[in-house]
């Protein structure tokens, strides 16, 4: 049984815009699933369709194996936390939390007890008599959660519940939300545009782009085996460096003017011998120092000009430039284009390495990064789909069926 099951869920607006395109996914009872994607990708629309606040163009929503397409939100027994909290401003905290119970006709004494219990879970016990305007942002957020959990719903929906909080409070509330989720155990669908929230909170993550599901899986899976270029760049911060490259017939990777031996040519990559590919490498997979230290033999090196060094204390981000063209359409590509346009070619950069906080490195230096070929990600230049490699799957210790080119999963 699934707590929530979406099947080919589609939303086409009257304007002809397709907000959600054949979205299928399931949430097991008690599971915490994060729906993540850039703004405008349709994640909130999908959530609102589950809640019953948005009509469904085609496809089905099942809650506890019951098709609820035509069921009003009132009768779906879902609770929802809104992005802007949507507290009832003229009601006290207690009345806000107890509103759903009052609607169900729960007797006053019973209602008071349950409101107090929910308030205790959320640390709101002293604030029950206050109005929303007398609360801080974090407290309001808690009231919004309280309003949802007091009903003991089967399904819990959250629409960017933390996005209005400041950065520090947001981190705090992340663990708070998870704690509450564990306490009530309801299947949760959580929408966010923040991949860090997704990675830290989700049992599973569904990545959405332009209304289409890109990949659905555990955080580690998405990080280590992104199904396509979009997921590869969306998950992880700083984002993955991606370049246009080629695999030559001898099995070396040609990246600008540099070559990185890939060792024995992987079966997945074999069809690409002598053809262009897109190669991706995560910032933390670039290492400084002599080739002997810690990395498997056969590691290649990548020479790069350091442009900027950003120290975060515990780690260091080295912004560099190599003579290869950036692939993908995300921030780095935009930044590279901007620098080129403004004529500041010496400031143009096209990659970031994440190094130890005490690494001795200065801007203007030319360094050689060591690269473990098994940590490289390859994507088809035409489709952006990941090229699945036996070696990378084996080395990361996860069994993945060999599929050649992995399309969108789900």
């Amino acid at each position, binding site marked *: 049984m699934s707590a929530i099951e979406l099947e080919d869920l589609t939303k086409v607006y009257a304007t002809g815009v397709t907000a959600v395109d054949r979205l299928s996914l399931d949430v097991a009872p008690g599971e915490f699933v994060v729906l993540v994607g850039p703004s405008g990708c349709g994640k909130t629309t999908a959530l609102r369709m589950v809640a019953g606040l948005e009509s469904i163009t085609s496809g089905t929503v099942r809650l506890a194996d019951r098709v609820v397409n035509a069921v009003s939100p009132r009768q779906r027994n879902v*609770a929802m936390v809104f992005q*802007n909290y949507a507290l009832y401003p003229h009601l006290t905290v207690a009345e806000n939390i107890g509103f759903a119970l009052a609607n169900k006709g729960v007797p006053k004494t019973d209602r008071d007890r349950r409101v107090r219990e929910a308030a205790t879970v959320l640390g709101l016990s002293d604030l029950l008599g206050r109005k929303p305007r007398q609360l801080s942002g974090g407290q309001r957020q808690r009231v919004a959660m309280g309003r949802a959990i007091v009903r003991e719903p089967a399904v819990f929906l959250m629409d960017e519940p933390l996005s209005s909080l400041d950065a520090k409070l947001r981190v705090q509330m992340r663990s708070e939300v998870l704690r509450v989720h564990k306490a009530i155990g309801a299947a949760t669908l959580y929408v966010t545009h923040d991949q860090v929230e997704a990675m830290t909170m989700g049992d599973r993550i569904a990545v959405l782009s332009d209304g289409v599901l890109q990949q659905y899986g555990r955080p580690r899976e998405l990080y280590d085996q992104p199904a396509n270029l979009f997921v590869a760049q969306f998950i992880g911060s700083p984002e993955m460096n991606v370049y246009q490259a080629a695999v030559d017939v001898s099995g070396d990777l040609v990246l600008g003017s540099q070559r990185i031996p890939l060792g024995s040519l992987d079966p997945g990559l074999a069809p690409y011998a002598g053809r262009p590919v897109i190669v991706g490498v995560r910032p933390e997979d670039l290492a400084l120092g002599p080739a002997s230290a810690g990395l498997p033999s056969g590691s290649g090196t990548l020479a790069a000009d350091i442009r900027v060094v950003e120290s975060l204390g515990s780690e260091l981000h080295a912004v560099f430039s190599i003579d290869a063209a950036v692939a993908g359409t995300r921030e780095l590509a935009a930044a590279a284009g901007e620098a080129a346009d403004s004529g500041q070619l010496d400031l143009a950069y096209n990659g970031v390495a994440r190094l130890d906080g005490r690494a001795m490195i200065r801007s203007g230096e030319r360094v050689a990064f060591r690269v473990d070929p098994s940590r490289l990600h390859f994507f088809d230049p035409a489709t952006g789909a990941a090229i699945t490699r036996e070696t990378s799957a084996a080395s990361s210790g996860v069994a993945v069926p060999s599929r050649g080119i992995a399309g969108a999963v789900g």
Partner: protein
Amino acid sequence: MTGQVLTPQAPPTGAAPAPSRRERRRLARLAEQEREIPVELYGLRRGTVTLLTMLAFLFAIFTLIPIAWLLINSTKTQANIFETFGFWFARPFNFFHTFSLLFQNVDGYGTYIQWLGNTALYAVLGGVGATALSAFAGYGLARFRFRGSRVAFYVIIAGLLVPITALTIPLYLTYAKAHLINSIWGMVLPSMISPIGVYLMRTYADISVPRDLIDAARIDGAGELRIFFRIALPLMMPGVLTVLLISIVAVWNNYFLPLLIFNINTKYPLTVGLGLWSDRAVNSGNAELYPLLVMGGLVTIIPLIALFLILQRYWRGGMLLGSIAN
């Protein structure tokens, strides 16, 4: 230091006495003043500000002069109203005598106090009815999409533009057929139709009742009526009171409709009753009615001023504070 006594400041202990209510109000006023920009910073010259202030002052006098005249002349006898200076008092002081006449049936033309009662009844029924209908309709038009909702709204707006005089004959004929002549319902039912009220409520509901709040209430299992009464209506309250005031004043001052439908003076509202008196005084030589007209005019406006002062407390901003995160 020349003999000045320095009062030692109380040490900042944790339990400072809570400021009194008056003190809190004073502080709030001061804080309010702090936020106001001094006139110099408006970018206007002193002279301009003075000139505009003078103009505003003159306009205020111009507006208040009739009320002052009413107040002064309500104390005079019939003769003095015509023979003494209009903006000063004259003996004998006749206020209470004239006032007592408001409670009598003068010359068989009707009793003022009865007209006042009629007016109050029509105004309350019509005003409350108009406000209720406007609130429902405005909320409905602002927050629900249904077939024809836009057309309906435009028709209502168009209703604003039709002067009631244009409808005299059809209205009278319809009323005659519906037996609404000399019926209070003939007065009250049309008064409950307020296109301007619907328009104001729609606009107000649109800005004061966020869609997310309605969605949240739906998910919380509230029915649409409960959402309206428990969530939307409290948030629309300042707008509701505005419409209530406008509607009551409109009925209170309505002359044309009651003139059309009432032909017995016990049903008259103040407007028509005073009109009758005025007509008698001017055309039938009943000059003894002039002091009554003045007094009647004065008493007529007092309830409206009182109503405005009472409702004023409820116009406050910030209804939505704390509900919606930026």
